[in-house]
């Protein structure tokens, strides 16, 4: 696609990386941000952004594209289309594919495939251990050369402390952040939902919040020991945020993310046995959910990431105990996050930090900013547009969401990657 010159006209440009929050026009030339000003002359393409928000494209640093291996659930084409629909111009995809992304060749496949069919930027995350089995390290250097931006065994947790230490040190050698899915497997014991009154009432197997926070605590201490850049994925319990807060106070290089379903729902919704509520870590009780929201407001949380985990009927239309964990979240992420802004927990600047600037920084990506010369990865959002969640209309193959039928406010109107409209009219 030949990049043309585009003016995004009359929107509220929110670009906290450059201290910008004003109504203005944004000019894109040759795939890059040219300038932000009022009264820019008309260009080859006009995008009317009056009453809209214009922000740097969002970066989702935790998605599962299921490609290679489970293309019936999602593939790089459909997954990136879903990302574009959600306002994400970059995604980082987890390595729990089939085969696992634990070698250069799988990384290369993903990178090349994304070039062929992907509509947004795809940055692979490599596995920490071979096969994510928690035993042997992967060739981080080789994989980094092929394009990984971080390592994680997400889906699984590296239980062995000695191995986790070495993985952190080795990853730090190549400047790769280590992302951990924090779950003490023995304590969690495969529990389907949060341990608490809902589990007692429903008879569903459960895992206590400590299964997560114990791991966070251990990992933070290892981060202190090794000096590695450590990122805790999808945190969900108050105790975990306490650990992160203390670590940040000590100046340790730790960061953390939360998902929209964890700051919106509680385990009460699991009482219906609807498998669309089954996710790992599980939805928690109201106290933990409220502590999570407070942690976002306070600044302890760095990133909102969807943990987009598409599944098909095969995995979800079964008994709750047998269903796979996961929610298809790329396309509801923004609207749910905007709720936090409407409820005055965060400012729009902070929203952009959570969705764009911070994930870009943690993963060392050139994104999160609309400074002149930056790639024109831009999202135009109508914050007032109401819509109802209809999974059948998702771009993602994954229809598994607990938000079916929910009325949300806030929708992506246009997503541009390198100046090309990948979502919206005229794509």
């Amino acid at each position, binding site marked *: 696609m030949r990049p043309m010159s585009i003016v995004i006209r009359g929107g509220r440009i929110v670009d906290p990386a450059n201290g910008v929050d004003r109504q203005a026009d944004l000019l894109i030339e040759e795939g890059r941000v040219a300038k932000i000003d009022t009264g820019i002359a008309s260009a080859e393409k006009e995008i009317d952004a009056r009453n809209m928000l214009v922000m740097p494209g969002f970066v989702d640093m935790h998605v599962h594209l299921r490609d290679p291996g489970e293309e019936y659930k999602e593939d790089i084409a459909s997954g990136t289309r879903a990302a574009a629909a959600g306002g994400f111009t970059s995604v980082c995809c987890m390595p729990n594919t089939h085969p696992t992304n634990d070698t250069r060749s799988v990384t290369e496949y993903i990178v090349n495939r994304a070039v062929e069919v992907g509509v947004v930027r795809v940055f692979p995350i490599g596995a920490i251990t071979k096969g994510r089995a928690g035993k042997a390290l992967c060739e981080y250097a080789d994989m980094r050369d092929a394009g990984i931006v971080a390592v994680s065994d997400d889906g699984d947790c590296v239980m062995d402390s000695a191995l986790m230490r070495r993985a952190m040190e080795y990853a730090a050698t190549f400047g790769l952040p280590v992302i951990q899915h924090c779950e003490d497997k*023995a304590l969690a*014991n495969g529990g389907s939902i949060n*341990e*608490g*009154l809902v*589990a*007692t*009432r*429903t*008879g*569903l197997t459960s895992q206590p919040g400590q299964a997560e926070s114990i791991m966070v605590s251990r990992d933070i201490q290892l981060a202190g020991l090794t000096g590695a850049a450590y990122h805790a994925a999808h945190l969900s319990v108050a105790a975990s945020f306490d650990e992160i807060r203390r670590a940040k106070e000590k100046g340790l290089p730790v960061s953390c993310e939360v998902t929209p379903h964890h700051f919106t729902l509680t385990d009460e919704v699991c009482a*219906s*046995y609807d498998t669309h509520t089954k996710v790992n870590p599980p939805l928690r009780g109201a106290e933990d959910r409220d502590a999570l929201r407070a942690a976002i407001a306070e600044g302890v949380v760095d990133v909102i990431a969807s943990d987009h985990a598409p599944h098909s009927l095969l995995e979800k*239309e*079964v*008994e*709750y*105990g*047998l269903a796979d964990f996961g929610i298809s979240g790329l396309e509801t992420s923004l609207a749910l996050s905007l709720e936090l802004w409407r409820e005055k927990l965060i400012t729009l600047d902070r929203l952009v930090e959570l969705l764009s600037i911070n994930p870009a920084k943690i993963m060392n990506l050139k994104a999160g900013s609309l400074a002149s010369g930056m790639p024109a990865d831009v999202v135009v959002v109508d914050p007032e547009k109401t819509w109802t969640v209809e999974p059948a209309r998702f771009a993602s193959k994954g229809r598994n969401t607990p938000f079916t039928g929910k009325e949300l406010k806030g929708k992506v109107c246009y997503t541009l990657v390198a100046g090309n409209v990948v979502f919206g009219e005229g794509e």
Partner: protein
Amino acid sequence: MSFSQRHLLDIESLNSEEISTILDLADRFQEISDRRIKKVPTLRGMTVVNLFMEPSTRTRSSFEIAEKRLSADTVNFSASSSATTKGETLLDTVRVLEAMDPSILVVRHSYAGAPHMIARNTDVAVVNAGDGVHAHPTQALLDCATIRKVKGSVEGLEVAIVGDISHSRVARSNLFALPKLGAKVRVCGPRTMIPPGLEELGIRVCNRIEEAVEGVDVVMMLRIQRERQGGTPLFPSLREYSRTFGLNRQNLALSKPDAIVMHPGPVNRGVELAPDIADGDRSVILQQVSYGVAVRMAVLYLLAGSPPVEERPVFFS
């Protein structure tokens, strides 16, 4: 008579009037079981399918007898609910059974929520005969029926439930049913077997059986679920369990002199119940089995026939 539910999935969704309706009906059906011709034609020509995805002889036979005494045709479909023998999914199995046009599906499954999933996906009435550790509503109903028969009323009684509460669907269903009928419940067992949140539900948790049975009207003993324990062990040995939490003549003496002893069966003699108690004069275990058929007949009678629509006037001639 108030009962307009389409399914019987758990006790939580019943109010006390609905429970009383079932118990009152059960008294009538007990009369049928007591006479020579133990049959009424009420469900004649209807098919009831017993979909038991978890082995059971007692509950299934009880349902079968209840179905036959109502003149229904019974079909037994057993399979394993273990994930390793997955072939047909549960919903596929249900659709196959639906094609045989049954009036009622009686479902037992080892995963909590399975009957609820089935109920969401079929027009046939569903009776939960036990789903994982979640619920066993007909067991709780027959337990309440037994207590009511022997004590006159459930209201105001103190009931102790002793055993592996965490893994017992019988305990859970009784924990909900008994307070709805006005009884006070205490539970007892090693802490490893007590699930969180019971105090919030108004249930007292006791650490020793002596404390639990003191002054109670009913002692309900649960079977130690050996077959459900996977992973980390919850208690060190049956010897220690039976010495600390087993019911015997000495600790039973702490309850009221006319207290009754109940057990859903089958009894692990010598583990949770001393043999002389299991067969003693305070035990109502066999009555539980007898009322089980009557209660199940009542449930099947209420669920058979057309689904609840707006109330149609009933004219008597």
